C-alpha cells in the first residue's frame, strides 16, 4: 500500500505470514496473516507490547523461531529469494551476509571468553572461508571505526566494555558483510537515554551508508518517531496499522495506536493525571520533620556514589519529590539509604528525629510501618512460594493494623479496588499468574493498606508496559493527593517526573546539579547536564527533532562541561528544604 511513495525495489516481502506454536491446549497463533513489504534503504519500526508478535515475526525472517514454533502459511521473500524454501546450509549462509540480526540483550550477546576481533573474524570466515588474516584485520578495523569505537576495542573482552560500546560492537558485526536487511531488536532497551541516542544515531547513519533495509523492533513511540520512516503497529499477532511515521503519529486510525501515542507523557503537554486533582493534598499534624538528611554521603571503596547532601522533608505538607538521574548517578543509593538498608558513610538520616542507624526495636517497627517502598521490578517483589496476598497480609498483621482475619481481608479488597484491581481475580493467585502491571499495582495497594507517612518509589514503572505506566503513576499520585502520603519518586524518566512531582532534584555523579519546581527544572533547564538529558529524550513528535548536534553528536564533551558548572537552584516548595551546597 506504500508503493506509490517508494519506487525502489523491495528487500523483504512477507505475504500472508502466520506463525503458530503447538501447546497442550491447542495451537497458539503468534502471528496472524501478516503482509508487509520493506524497501531498500527504508527504516521500518515494529511497535507493540510484549507478546504482540513483533520479535517472532522478525525471527521468522532469520528462520530462527524458538521450538516448536513454525511458519504455517505465507511466503517470505528476501530480495528475490524464497527464505522458507532454503535448506539449512543455504539459510546459514544467508544469515548475516544478507540479513543481519542485532539482538536485544547487548549486555550478553557477545561470547564472554573471546576478544572482540576474533568474534568479527569468525563471522567473516563462516561466509568467506580462507579470507587472509590481513584482509580480516582491515575489515574488522573498518567495521569498528565505522561505529565510532577506537580500534583497540578489538583486543578487549566483552566484559571490559560498557553497555553502549557492546551494543555498537553488535552493530559493527551486523554490517560487516553489508547485508540487504538489518533487524534490530530493541537495541537500546538496556541503555541510558544519552547512550541510547548515541547508539541509535550510529545505527541510522551506518544503515544509510550501506543502503540496506532496517527493521527496528521496539515499544517506545518516541524512539520510533526519531528513528524510522515507516511504522508497523502489532497487537496480539496482528498488524493493526501500517504507514509512514507522519501518518501514524499525526493521524492514527486504529484505537490501539491512538492509545499507544496518547499514553506517552510529554514535557509541557497535557497532564496524563486527572487534571482537576490540583487542589492541595490533605495536611497532617506534625511537629517533627518527617525525614532529614544531615551531610549524608556514601562511598563504595574508592568510588563515591553520593556526595554529602542535606535536606529536610516536613511532615505536615505531603509533597512528591522527584530524584532524577541516569544509572550511576546515586539515585538508587539514596533510596536504599532512606529505607535504612544501606548505612551512610558519613552523616545521619533522621526519621521523625530518630537516627535510622540507632533505633530501638519499637522505634524501628514504627519506622518500618511509616516508610514503605515500591521497587522497580514487580516480578521480584513477590515470594514465588506464596500466593500474592501474603505480601499484603503479612505486614498488615505485623504492624498491628489487623483486627482479625475478616478485617484484613476487607482491607486488602478495598486497597485492590482503590488501585483498579478486581480482588477476586488477583488476591488468591500465585505471582507468576499475574502480569507485571497487576503486580506493581498490588504493591501500590500494599502501600495504601499500610498508609505510611512516606513512600519511596524507586523506578516504579520502568519495567511495566507503556500503556499501563500512566495509570500506575496516577495510582501513586493518588496516594499523596487522597491519602496525604509524602512520596520520593526516583526515576530516570524526566517526562513522568515533570507531571507527578512538586519538586525535582537532578543528580549527576552523586551531586545535585539542578533542583526546583518541575516547570522550571525540566521545562526550562539551565544546567548543561539537565539540558543534555532533555536533549537525549526521543520525543514522539516529528517537529521536535532529536537534538541538534547531528550524527557526530558527542555527549562526553557536554558531560565534561557539566562537571565544571555548579548546582543551579530554581526555587523552593513548601515543606521541603534542600541545603544548598
Amino acid at each position: 500500500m506504500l508503493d506509490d511513495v517508494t519506487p525502489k525495489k523491495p528487500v523483504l516481502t512477507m505475504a500472508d505470514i502466520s506463525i503458530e506454536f503447538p501447546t497442550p491446549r491447542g495451537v497458539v497463533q503468534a502471528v496472524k496473516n501478516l503482509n508487509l513489504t520493506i524497501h531498500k534503504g527504508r527504516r521500518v519500526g515494529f511497535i507493540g507490547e510484549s507478546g504482540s508478535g513483533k520479535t517472532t515475526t522478525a525471527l521468522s525472517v532469520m528462520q530462527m523461531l524458538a521450538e516448536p514454533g513454525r511458519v504455517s502459511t505465507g511466503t517470505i521473500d528476501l530480495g528475490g529469494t524464497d527464505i522458507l524454501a532454503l535448506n539449512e546450509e543455504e539459510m546459514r549462509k544467508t544469515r548475516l551476509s544478507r540479513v543481519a540480526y542485532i539482538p536485544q540483550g547487548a549486555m550478553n550477546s557477545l561470547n564472554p571468553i573471546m576478544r572482540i576481533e576474533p568474534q568479527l573474524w569468525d563471522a567473516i570466515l563462516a561466509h568467506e572461508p580462507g579470507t587472509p588474516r590481513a584482509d580480516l584485520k582491515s575489515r574488522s578495523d573498518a567495521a569498528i571505526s565505522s561505529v565510532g569505537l577506537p580500534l583497540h576495542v578489538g583486543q578487549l573482552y566483552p566484559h571490559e566494555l560498557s553497555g553502549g560500546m557492546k551494543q555498537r560492537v553488535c552493530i559493527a558485526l551486523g554490517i560487516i558483510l553489508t547485508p540487504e536487511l538489518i533487524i534490530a531488536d530493541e537495541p537500546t532497551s538496556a541503555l541510558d537515554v544519552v547512550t541510547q541516542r548515541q547508539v541509535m544515531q550510529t545505527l541510522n547513519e551506518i544503515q544509510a551508508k550501506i543502503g540496506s533495509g532496517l527493521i527496528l523492533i521496539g515499544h517506545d513511540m518516541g524512539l520510533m518517531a526519531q528513528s524510522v520512516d515507516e511504522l508497523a503497529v502489532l497487537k496480539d499477532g496482528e498488524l493493526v496499522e501500517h504507514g509512514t511515521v507522519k501518518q501514524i503519529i499525526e493521524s492514527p486510525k486504529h484505537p490501539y495506536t491512538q492509545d499507544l501515542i496518547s499514553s506517552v507523557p510529554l514535557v509541557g503537554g497535557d497532564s496524563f493525571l486527572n487534571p482537576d486533582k490540583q487542589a492541595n493534598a490533605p495536611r497532617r499534624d506534625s511537629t517533627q520533620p518527617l525525614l532529614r538528611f544531615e551531610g549524608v554521603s556514601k562511598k563504595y571503596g574508592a568510588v563515591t556514589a553520593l556526595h554529602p547532601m542535606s535536606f529536610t522533608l516536613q511532615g505536615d505538607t505531603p509533597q512528591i519529590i522527584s530524584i532524577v538521574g541516569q544509572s550511576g548517578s546515586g539515585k538508587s543509593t539514596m533510596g536504599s539509604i532512606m529505607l535504612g538498608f544501606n548505612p551512610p558513610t558519613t552523616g545521619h538520616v533522621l526519621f521523625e528525629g530518630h537516627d535510622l542507624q540507632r533505633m530501638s526495636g519499637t522505634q524501628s517497627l514504627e519506622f518500618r510501618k511509616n516508610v514503605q517502598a515500591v521497587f522497580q521490578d514487580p516480578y521480584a517483589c513477590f515470594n514465588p512460594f506464596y500466593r500474592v496476598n501474603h505480601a499484603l497480609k503479612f505486614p498488615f498483621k505485623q504492624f498491628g493494623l489487623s483486627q482479625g482475619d475478616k478485617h484484613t481481608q476487607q482491607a486488602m479488597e478495598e486497597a485492590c479496588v482503590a488501585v483498579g484491581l478486581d480482588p477476586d481475580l488477583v488476591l488468591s493467585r500465585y505471582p507468576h499468574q499475574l502480569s507485571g502491571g497487576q503486580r506493581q499495582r498490588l504493591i501500590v495497594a500494599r502501600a495504601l493498606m499500610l498508609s505510611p507517612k512516606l513512600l519511596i518509589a524507586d523506578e516504579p514503572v520502568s519495567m511495566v508496559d507503556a500503556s499501563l505506566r500512566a495509570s500506575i503513576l496516577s495510582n501513586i499520585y493518588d496516594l499523596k493527593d487522597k491519602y496525604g502520603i509524602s512520596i520520593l519518586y526516583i526515576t530516570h524518566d524526566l517526562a513522568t517526573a515533570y507531571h507527578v512531582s512538586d519538586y525535582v532534584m537532578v543528580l549527576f555523579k552523586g551531586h545535585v546539579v539542578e533542583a526546583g519546581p518541575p516547570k522550571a527544572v525540566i521545562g526550562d533547564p539551565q544546567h548543561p547536564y539537565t539540558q543534555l538529558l532533555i536533549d537525549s529524550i526521543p520525543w514522539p513528535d516529528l517537529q521536535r527533532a532529536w537534538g541538534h548536534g547531528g550524527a557526530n553528536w558527542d555527549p562526553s564533551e557536554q558531560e565534561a562541561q557539566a562537571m565544571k558548572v555548579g548546582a543551579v537552584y530554581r526555587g523552593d516548595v513548601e515543606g521541603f528544604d534542600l541545603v544548598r551546597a
Partner: protein
Amino acid sequence: MSRIPKEYIINRLITLVLTILIAATLIWIIPRLSPVDPAEIALGRMAAGAGTVENADEILATLRAQMGIDQPMIVQYIKYIKGVLLLDFGLSTAAFPTPVSALIANALPWTLGLMLISLIITFIVGNLLGALMVWEKTPRLWKVAIPAAMVFTSIPPILSGLLLMWIFAAKLQWFPLTGAYGLTVEPGWTWTFASSVLQHGFLPALSIVVVTFGFWALGMRGLMITVQGEDHTTLAKAKGLKPRYILYKYMIRNAILPQITAFALKIGLLIAGQVLVERIFAYNGMGKLLYDAILDQDFPVIQGVSYVIILLTALSVFIVDLIYPFIDPRVRHEVA
C-alpha cells in the same frame, strides 16, 4: 595482556597451605585419641613371631622411645609436621626398616598414571556426551542412548570394577585378574613389559571411566541448557556460523568453565574412588599399599598414604585454580 592478580594467587596459596596443615593435623591427632598403643601392637607382632617375649616392659619402653611417643605431645607434633613437610613419615612397622617414603615412591607412579588417564578420559568423554544431549543437531539415536547409559553411572567404580573383573578377567579371561603387570615379566623399558602394563591397567581404568563419565555428563547437560538459552548463542546462530563451530567455540567453551571448578572440588572423591578400585584389582598403587597397611596395622604407612593422597588432591585443586584465570578472562578482571 593482563596477568593473574597477586591477591588471587595469595588466596589460593593460603587455601592450599591450610588444607595441607588441617589434613596433616587430623591424621596425627586421630590415632593419638585412640586407646590403642602402637608400641603394644609392635610388641604383639614380635610375640607372634617369636612365640614369647621376655622383658616385655623394657621392650615396650624402648619401642616407645624409638617411635618418639614418650615425648610431650607438642614436641611430637612439631617433629611430625617438620617430617611431613619433607615427606618423611618414619619407618614402616610391617616392612621394618623400610622408610614409608620409599614404599610410597614405588606405589605413586602407578596411581598417578592410572589417575591421569582415567580422570582425563572421563572428563572429556563425560562433558562431550553431556553437550551432545543438549545440542539440537545430535542424531536422535544418541539422544536416546546417552540418557539410558547415564543410569549406570550412579554406581561407584568399585562395583563396576567387580563386575568387569568377573566378566572380562575371571569368565572370558581376556584380561589378567589382578596386579599392575605380569608376575613373570621383568620391569624395564621393554615391549613385553609395556604391553603387560597396558593389559593390566585396562580394566581398572575402564571401571572408573564407565561409571564416572555420567557425573560430568549430567553437570554438562544442565550447563549447556543454560548456555543454549543465552544471547550470545542466539547471536552466533544469527551470524551464520557453522553449527559445529557454535557447539565448540560458543557453547561448550562457555559451559565447561563451571565444570572445571567442579573438577577441582570433586578431585578428592575421585581419587578416593580410584584407591578402592586399585584395592580390588590388587593394582600395585597407593590403594594396595593402603589396604596392606590396614591389614598389618602399619600406622606410619596408613598416615603416609593418606597424607600423600590428600596432598595430591590439594595440589591438583591449586593447579586448576591457577589455570582457571587463563581460560576465563572474566576472573582476571573481577579480582583486579
